[in-house]
């Protein structure tokens, strides 16, 4: 987020409050979904989708990744790639 001036920041504050509301609602949703005791696989997918949406909201708006510098995107892309390799690790142990 480059050096935003004061009134621009004032506009952002409204966005932060909306994001907060969205996060609260999504939390409630994900808890409610868990009460249905869906079969494991679907429950995992649903929970991860909701968590990813919440995560991207926090990362996008609170951490200002929406309008970040190119070099940060490169670092995060590299990290995401090795994160995926790391998450595939369990398939290696049983293989």
């Amino acid at each position, binding site marked *: 987020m480059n050096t935003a001036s004061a009134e621009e920041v004032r506009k*952002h504050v409204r966005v932060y409050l909306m994001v907060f509301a969205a996060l609260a609602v999504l939390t*409630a949703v994900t808890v409610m979904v868990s009460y249905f*005791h869906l079969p494991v696989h679907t429950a995992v997918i649903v929970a991860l989708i909701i968590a990813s949406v919440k995560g991207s909201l926090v990362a996008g708006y*609170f951490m200002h990744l929406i309008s970040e510098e190119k070099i940060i995107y490169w*670092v995060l892309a590299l990290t995401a790639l090795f*994160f995926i390799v*790391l998450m595939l690790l369990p398939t290696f142990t049983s293989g």
Partner: protein
Amino acid sequence: MSAEVEIPYAVKPHPVTGLFNGKFGIWLFLASEVMLFGALFSTYVLLRVGAEAWPHGYSLLNVPLATLNTFVLILSSVTMVMAWASLKMGDFRKFRLNLGATILLAFVFLIVKSFEYGAKFEHHIHPATSTFYAIYFTLTGLHGLHVIGGILVNLYLLLPGSALWRTEPERFTNRIECAGLYWHFVDLVWIFLFPVLYLL
């Protein structure tokens, strides 16, 4: 910070990368944290896939308490970003209010956590009880340590650190931004931790 040597781009952003040193540094640190928690989540997946019977989180853990904790942490994330925003608007008083709220909410999170842990220990449930509890205590414990780390940093910035606001406001705002990025990351980890451990 009386380093005799003036480090370029410590406060002003670099013309090409558009970042001041601290911001680039904190993002690299968060990248390594992603790999740290990634390894633990990968361990969780491996243990769960390998185990014949894996209990459902909601049957063993207190979901309402954890939901409350999630709200607390999300709220603390909001107050954190508001603290940074109020500094951007030059309103030091509002900044102190928001940062104080963030620290308070972090304490609330830890207190709720200690109730949860206390209840477990009371029923003689320890990490050694089962692999589920082992990974539960390890993940939430390490996350808790990160919350404590965040509290210490924020406390420093609220009390002794805030003297910097009068002499070098921009450098102080940058620091709050970095502390904020770290805190949002800790919240981000909990956002994934909560459903994985408690709801699946």
